[in-house]
Each structure stands twice: as structure tokens, then as C-alpha cells.
């Protein structure tokens, strides 16, 4: 019997979830669940599968309703709510491409909302469950680990602890409760496979390190930029051998053969040093550490939720074999972090005084940096998803949902930035014209505007001009490479901007002042 090449590479809970769906699938059409019935795509099957995605996304809806209730039902939170519910990234990956991310992000948001409410044990258990649904959430596990360990297992969570009192502040009962519940969750998930002695096989399915540094086409991260640098060097050296001799560069012949192949399969570098899985791991950890330290020193929810986003970024930017879809982890966690901030409502005309009232409830204050970073990362990341939808009739759909989302959410968030920080942002952005002062892009610097507007000609080329000029087969890697590299620039820039917002804001600096 020939079975599918699409082997199961998600953790056991997801397998049980699929098993649960298959009960209904068998009712709809028994052929759906027949193992050797491959590439079966009758309309009924497609309707059924798509319906399961939409129904499972009710979990996300529920989580967002809870978030709205807990974080405060103000304009900023409403915008974030809608932005997540009608997120182009989620729509593209779940409802066009086909995955169950809405459901999983729903669980993640439930867990984060629990943490906000101070129900840390439940938050931890939910996160352990989530990890056993999809192991991509390992990207943010360090933040969870540090936060739960520090906030739940020690007293005096809101403040720093002097070195001497660490032992007295330790709460062994909490530690045991957390440890045991997480172990129980993992035992429920992995236990049967340990009993059947299939753990190594399971691990090899979940962590396919053989697959190479980059996914089939480059996710918008460091390695996209790195590979692009390598390709450019190869191009230069092969065109001008003199340059290569002068700079003493050597070409790896195997990689040279791969140049035209470009983006598919294992990435071999021609000139720059090869990157191994260990390198990426070290780099990821190094990038995560600052955020983790901030949480460890003062484990408040405000710091925690920002560091979750930073952890997601670190893994996305430097991780091994990162999927382009993982950008959702960055944007969704960033959305929650922004929902936790305090913004102004558009027509309250809140100045500094109204803001101090607002500050009572939530965490920090929304700054233009948060918004700019979020919008740039989102746009870049979602455009990085576009190559998943390569047929011509899908092009208007992906372009329109992204553009509409960007304009609506961008304008909405713009109005939530308090006046106070607006003036500072205006200084930062430099002099601007009267047109720009009214526009939703008024807070953005000239360079950022250039980047945002630059996506239009770049994507026009990628989606229309390239095929018209070169046809479908010539230089097919070029549009993909342009998209990846351009998106990577935006994501890296947005990450830097968000990091500065995180480390320079009251969220992290407050403590120094109080000391």
C-alpha cells in the first residue's frame, strides 16, 4: 500500500486532534480517511476540511473576547482584536493555504491572558498543552520558562529580590505544582510513545535537522540576507574573476552549481562560511538572553509579554530551517503586547492628564515606535507569505487583504498614539510636509516611508513585470529572492525598532529610577 509522503511531523496532541476530526470526516465521506487514497480533493472534502479550520478558529475568537475583557475594552484593544481576527497572515496561512494556526494561536492567547490575570499555573499548563500541539511554540518557550519560574516559584513577583533572600522567597509548593502539571501534560502526550519505544522516531519527525538552513524559499530572516550576500558575491566573483583573486576569495564549486537552482533544497554557500545548526542555536539563544534577563530581574506581565515577542523574533530571525509562516508568531505576540499597552481613544483628545488616568489600569503607554515596528514587521512578514500563493487568480486576493488590513489597522493604531509621545516622534521623524502631518504615516521616518512605499514597485515587478518580461521559467528564483530579501530587511529593521522600544521604555527602565 502506498501511503502519503506527507508524514505526520506535529506532536501527539495534534495527532489526536486530527483523529478527532477524522471521526467527522468518516461521516462526511469515508474515502477521506482511507490511507492509500492520496490527493483526494472532491468539493465535499474541501468544504469539510475548510469548515474544520473555520470552526476551530472559534477558539481564537473566544480567546480574543477574553483578551478584550481582561486588557480593557478600549479603542486600542478593539483594533488589535479586529486586526487579529481578520489578520491577513492568518487568513492566508489558514484559510487559503490550509493550516490550523487560528486554533493554536487561540490557545496561546488564552495562556497569555491567564498570565495577565495572574493565573500562572493555568497559563503554564495551557502552554505545555500548546507545545504538544505544535512544537513551533518552542520558539517562545524560554520566555515562558523564565517568567513562570521567577514569577510563580518565588514570592514578591513584582519586585527584584536581594541576593540574600532568594532562598527564603522560594515557594516549593508552587514549584512542585508547576513541575508536576507540566510533566503530566508531557506524559499524557509523549507517554504512549515512550512506552512503545518510539521516542527517537518521533523526535526525528519533529526535528528534521537534515532539512537545511533555509526552507524551500527563504523566510524573511538573517539567513535570507546572508544567502543573498553569498549569491551576490558569487555573482560578482564569477563575473569579475580579478576581484576574487584580489580579495582572495575561493568559490565552492558545488555551491556554484546551485546558484541557478537558487532557492530550493539544502542551502550551500559559495563564498561565505557554511552555517550549521549549532551556530543558529547559539545565535538564537544570544538574541533571546537580553529579554529573558529583563523578565528575570522583574517578572511583570508587561515585561513578559514583550519578551515573548522578542523570543519569537530571535528564533524566527536566526533559527534553523525557519518557515516563512513562523512570522505569525512574531506578529501575534507583538499584537498581544500592544494590546497590553495604554493608548488614547481618538476623540477624547487625551493629553498628558488623561493619560495618567489611563495609566492606572494597564502597563506602559503606546509609543509610535511600537506601532511603527508592528506595522513594518507585519507588512514585510505578510508580503513574505505572498509567494505561497503563486497562481494568478490568487494575486488580487492576497494583495487586497494585506493592503486593506494595513490601511485600516495602521490608521487606527496611529490615532491611539498619545499626543505626548507624538511630539517626540515628530522630532524624531524630522520636518515633514503638511500632507504628511495628516497622513497615517506621519509618525514614520522618511526611510520607513520609503520602505513602505517601496513595496509597491517591488511587488509590481514580482507579480506582474517579471513574468511579462522573462516568461514563467527564466530566472524563476529572482522574484522569490527579491521578495524574501526585501521582506527580511523590513523584519530585521522592525525587530531592532521594537527592541529599542522594549528596552528603552518604562517597562524596563522604571526599576532603575525607583532604586
Amino acid at each position: 500500500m502506498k501511503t502519503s509522503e506527507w508524514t505526520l511531523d506535529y506532536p501527539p496532541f495534534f495527532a489526536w486532534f486530527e483523529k478527532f476530526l477524522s471521526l467527522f470526516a468518516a461521516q462526511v465521506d469515508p474515502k477521506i480517511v482511507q490511507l492509500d487514497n492520496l490527493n483526494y480533493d472532491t468539493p465535499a472534502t474541501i468544504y469539510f476540511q475548510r469548515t474544520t479550520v473555520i470552526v476551530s478558529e472559534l477558539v481564537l475568537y473566544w480567546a480574543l473576547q477574553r483578551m478584550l475583557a481582561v486588557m480593557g475594552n478600549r479603542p486600542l484593544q478593539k483594533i488589535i482584536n479586529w486586526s487579529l481576527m481578520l489578520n491577513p497572515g492568518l487568513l492566508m496561512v489558514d484559510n487559503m493555504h490550509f493550516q490550523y494556526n487560528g486554533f493554536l494561536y487561540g490557545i496561546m492567547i488564552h495562556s497569555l491572558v491567564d498570565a495577565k490575570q495572574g493565573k500562572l499555573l493555568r497559563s503554564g499548563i495551557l502552554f505545555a498543552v500548546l507545545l504538544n500541539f505544535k512544537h513551533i511554540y518552542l520558539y517562545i518557550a524560554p520566555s515562558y520558562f523564565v517568567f513562570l519560574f521567577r514569577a510563580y516559584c518565588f514570592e514578591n513577583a513584582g519586585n527584584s529580590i536581594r541576593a540574600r533572600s532568594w532562598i527564603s522567597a522560594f515557594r516549593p509548593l508552587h514549584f512542585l505544582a508547576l513541575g508536576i502539571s507540566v510533566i503530566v501534560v508531557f506524559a499524557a502526550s509523549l507517554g504512549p510513545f515512550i512506552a512503545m519505544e518510539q521516542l527517537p522516531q518521533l523526535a526525528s519527525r519533529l526535528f528534521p535537522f537534515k532539512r537545511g538552513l533555509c526552507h524551500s524559499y527563504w523566510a524573511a530572516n538573517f539567513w535570507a540576507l546572508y544567502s543573498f550576500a553569498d549569491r551576490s558575491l558569487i555573482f560578482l566573483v564569477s563575473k569579475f574573476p580579478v576581484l576574487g583573486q584580489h580579495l582572495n576569495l575561493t568559490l565552492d564549486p558545488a555551491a556554484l552549481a546551485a546558484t541557478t537552482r537558487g532557492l530550493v533544497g539544502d542551502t550551500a554557500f559559495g563564498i561565505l562560511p557554511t552555517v550549521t545548526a549549532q551556530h543558529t542555536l547559539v545565535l538564537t539563544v544570544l538574541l533571546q538572553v537580553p529579554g529573558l534577563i529583563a523578565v528575570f530581574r522583574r517578572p511583570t506581565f508587561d515585561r513578559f509579554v514583550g519578551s515573548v515577542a522578542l523570543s519569537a523574533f530571535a528564533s524566527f530571525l536566526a533559527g534553523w530551517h525557519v518557515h516563512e509562516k513562523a512570522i505569525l508568531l512574531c506578529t501575534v505576540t507583538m499584537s498581544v503586547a500592544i494590546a497590553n499597552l495604554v493608548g488614547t481613544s481618538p476623540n477624547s483628545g487625551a493629553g498628558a492628564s488623561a493619560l495618567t488616568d489611563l495609566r492606572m489600569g494597564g502597563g506602559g503607554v503606546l509609543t509610535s515606535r511600537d506601532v511603527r515596528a508592528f506595522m513594518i514587521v507585519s507588512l514585510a512578514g505578510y508580503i513574505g507569505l505572498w509567494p505561497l500563493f503563486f497562481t494568478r487568480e490568487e494575486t488580487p486576493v492576497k494583495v487586497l487583504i494585506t493592503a486593506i488590513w494595513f490601511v485600516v489597522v495602521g490608521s487606527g493604531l496611529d490615532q491611539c498614539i498619545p499626543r505626548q509621545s507624538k511630539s517626540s516622534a515628530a522630532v524624531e521623524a524630522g520636518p515633514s510636509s503638511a500632507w504628511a502631518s495628516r497622513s497615517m504615516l506621519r509618525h514614520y521616518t522618511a526611510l520607513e516611508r520609503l520602505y513602505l512605499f517601496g513595496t509597491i514597485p517591488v511587488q509590481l515587478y514580482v507579480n506582474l513585470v517579471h513574468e511579462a518580461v522573462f516568461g514563467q521559467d527564466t530566472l524563476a528564483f529572482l522574484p522569490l529572492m527579491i521578495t524574501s530579501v526585501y521582506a527580511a530587511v523590513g523584519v530585521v529593521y522592525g525587530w531592532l525598532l521594537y527592541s529599542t522600544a522594549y528596552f528603552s521604555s518604562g517597562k524596563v527602565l522604571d526599576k532603575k529610577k525607583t532604586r
Partner: protein
Amino acid sequence: MASTSLRARGSKTTLSSSTIAATTTTSATISNAVASTSTGSRAPKLNLTVYRYATWLEENQMKRSAPWIAVASAVLLRWIIGLGPYSGMATPPRYGDYEAQRHWMELTLHRPIRDWYSDKSKWWDLDYPPLTAYVSWICGYIGDKINPEWFAWEASRGFESPDAKLYMRTTVMICELLVYISAVVVFANRWFANKPWTRKHTALLLILMQPGLILIDSGHFQYNAVMLGLVVWAVNSFLADQDVLGSVFFCLALGFKQMALYFAPAVFAYLLGKSFRQGFFGCIWKLIKLGIAVVVTLGLQFAPWLRSQDEILQVVQRIFPLFRGLYQDKVANVWCAVNVVIKLRDIFDIQELVRFSTLATLVSFLPSMLHLIAKPTKRGLIYGLINSSLSFFLLSFQVHEKSILVPALPITLLILDEPATASLFITLATFTMYPLLRQEALAMPYFVLLGLWIWLTSGTFKNASKLLEFSAAVNLLVMSTIHLAEMLVPPPARYPDLYPVLNTLWGAGGFVLYWLYFNYRQFTLVNTPKMGFRVTKTKQT
């Protein structure tokens, strides 16, 4: 003084726009100034999701980008529906409306203009008026440059490919964008000229969300939006008192699709009535201007076939094919409903039926027409358009189920003036097209779009009368019962068409009631020419 007038305005919670007529110019300007600063609290609020969204847009100072967002969303929705199947997809030998439109592009591209209406290839004869033919020629010409295979003479009969479908869908989308959507944007601005921005935008969004037109044009595959858009442009011109321009647009609509004739009595009555009010010489001068506009516009369109009587006759016979019968398939009009009990087609021959149905139509639109001649107001014009098109739909000869889109257009335009009645009508009209859509595997888009429409407009019944709320509930109940029964219980062998017949009976009954209601409304409109709906330019702040 200003504050009292404002309080008076605020207390009026009815949607009737006749309230605006009461405000004098001074208080109008004051309220405009106030409305621009804090519209939300002063103007009567609508209990609609779309309205809340529009309010949000205004609060966030997104008035400039909002129309673009609305248009982009409308295009997105239509495009997604367009990804689905079309009429006659992969169903040889005759295929469907998609093939008809494609064939006309092929025909106009390869045959000399004189042969367009006399081509004897027995394959989807061109039976639409000349403007459709010209547009087909443009589409065919451009398509031919992209891929000659799509419109190759005779070789492309029944040709289907993903790229050809993409091209055809794009032509519909562009036509709709250029003609219909732009017209609706302008209409919302002119019709609600004295109203808060939020209301304009709510109307725009709801009109663009009308499910019937989306399903037929972007799903089934037709270019109705062009004809309807030209009619809206005509209405826009009438609203701005540019009557000559308006009649040119209306003649273009007639030249695109003969169904625009459903509106002709109302347009004629409105223009005639308006001319009568200009004094003797003014009247004659105005009639001459309008006459020249009509003759020239129609003449230019039909020019290639005006060389001999035979040619003219040939074109007319193609455009008005009387031999096709009293109605097509199942349509929710009077004849089809009566036919359930009395087999009209067996009793009378076709000539008698033509005469009889024409007479009935004439009688049914005459009262509204005479009223419009006597009181040619702008608001009355819209009601006149509804009444004459409904009369044609219910009683005229050879009506398609898709023709309900014609009366649905002016009713959609009244979506904020008669919110509950209009939204209920659209629901019912979309429902009557279900048998057609189901045949073409468009049931899923139908349920999604209709559900969306019902959800978006459900708030309109909050302020409506109990009777209306009740009838909306009953309608919803009947509709879902018929749908559920059709899905679960196969029809008895004796009546294989049981469900479509139930559908048409329910629809026809509803439409007759609507005909009565809108006639009543037209006659009871509180309107004198002086107080009629004025188009004045409001100053934007």
C-alpha cells in the same frame, strides 16, 4: 437658537430623510458645522454594524481613505466569488452565459460589424443591444492580443481554461469598477449631500454589499453592473439637475441591455413632468434638447445597422426575441405563479400572450407614471423607477429570474431611506435566484453572501414597525424551511420541480406586496417641488 434647533434634530430618531426638508438654510449650516465636530452624538444613530464601523472611521479621521477601503473590499469580495464556478462551466454542448459572452467577443472580433446581428452560426446569437457588442469587441480585441486561442473563430467554441476565465473575470471586474462602483460612490455623495458623512459611507458600503448583483455578475457571469451602473449615472445626473446628461446615460444603459427599458416609463415621466414646469417655451426647448440627446445617443449606437429596413428589423428581432415564450425557467413573477394553477401557455397562443402581458404591464405602471408626471421630484423618481421596473418584472413578457436585479437596483439605493423594507426585498430577491445559482454550483457563495447581508442589515428592523419585523421573521422562516427541505427531502416524483415552484410562489407573492407598498409610498410622499430632495454642495471642513 442654535441649541434648540440642534436638540430638535437630535430627538428625531426616525430615518426618514424628510426631516432635512424642515430645517432652514441657517440651521442647516449650523448643524453642518456642529456635525463635523461631533456627529456621533447629534445625528440619530443607526443600529447597524456598518454604521458603527463608519463612525469608527470618522473618529479615526479616515474619511479620505475610507472610500478606497470600501471599494477595495468590494473588489475583494467580488473577486473571491469569482474564483468559484460560472454559468455553464464544463457542461457541453451548450455551456452557459459565460460561453455566450465569450462567443460574442469572438464574433465581434472576427466578423464585420454588419454581420454581428445576422450571423447564422447557430451558436449563442448576439441578442443584446449594440453597446454590449462594442464592449465585447474591446474585450475580444485585448484578449486576442494576450492569447489568440481564447477567441479563435469557430475553434474556440466552448473553450475553457483557467487563464481565459481569469481574463473574463477581470473584464467584468474592470467594467463594474469603472461604471457601477464609481456611480454608487457618486450617488452616495449626492443623495446624502446634506447628511453626516457616516450615513453616506454606511449607504455606500451596504449598496456595494448587495448580494444579488455580486452573485450574478461575479459568480454566474454577466455584465449587468454596466447597465445598472449607467442607470445610476443617469440618476446621479438627474440629482444634479443635469437632465440632458442623464438621458444620454440612460440611452447608453438601454444600448447596453434592453432590460433598462423596465426603467424607461419612470425616466420618461420624470423628464416630461419636469419639462411641463418650465413654462411653454421652456418646456418645448427642454423637450427638444432631450429629444436630440436621445436620438443622437441611440442613433450613434445603432448607426452601423441603419442602412436598410431589413437590417434594423433583424437587430430588433434579435434584441426582442418574442418567440422564446412568456417566461424562462422558473421566475418569481405573476405569469409563472398563475401558471401553476392555470396553464396559460396551453390556452393562449403567443401573440395573444404578448398583447395581454404588455397591456397588463402598461396598466400596472401607469398610476406611478402619471403621479411622477404630476410631481416630478427626485425622491419620486427613485420610487417611480422601482414601480415601473417591478411592474415589468411581474407582468411583462419573457422575464428572466435575473431580471429581479433591475427593480432591486433602485430599492438598494433607498437602503437608508427605507432600511427595513429595502433589506427585506434584497433578501427575497436573492432567494428567488437560488434555483439558478444552485444549478451552477453557486450555492455556497449564495448562502455566505445572503447570510452576510442578513447579518449586516438585521439592525434595520429594530426601528421598523412590528408588522415589518414580523414579516421579516416569517420570510426568514419560510426561506430556511424551503432550503432545509430541499436538502433533506427529495421532491416527490410527480412534482420534480416542487422546490423551485415553492420558491417562485413565495417570491412572486412578496413582490406583488412590494409593488403595492411602493406605489402607496410614492403616492404618499410628502413632496412639493420646493421641498423636494435638493442637491446642495456641503462645505467640507
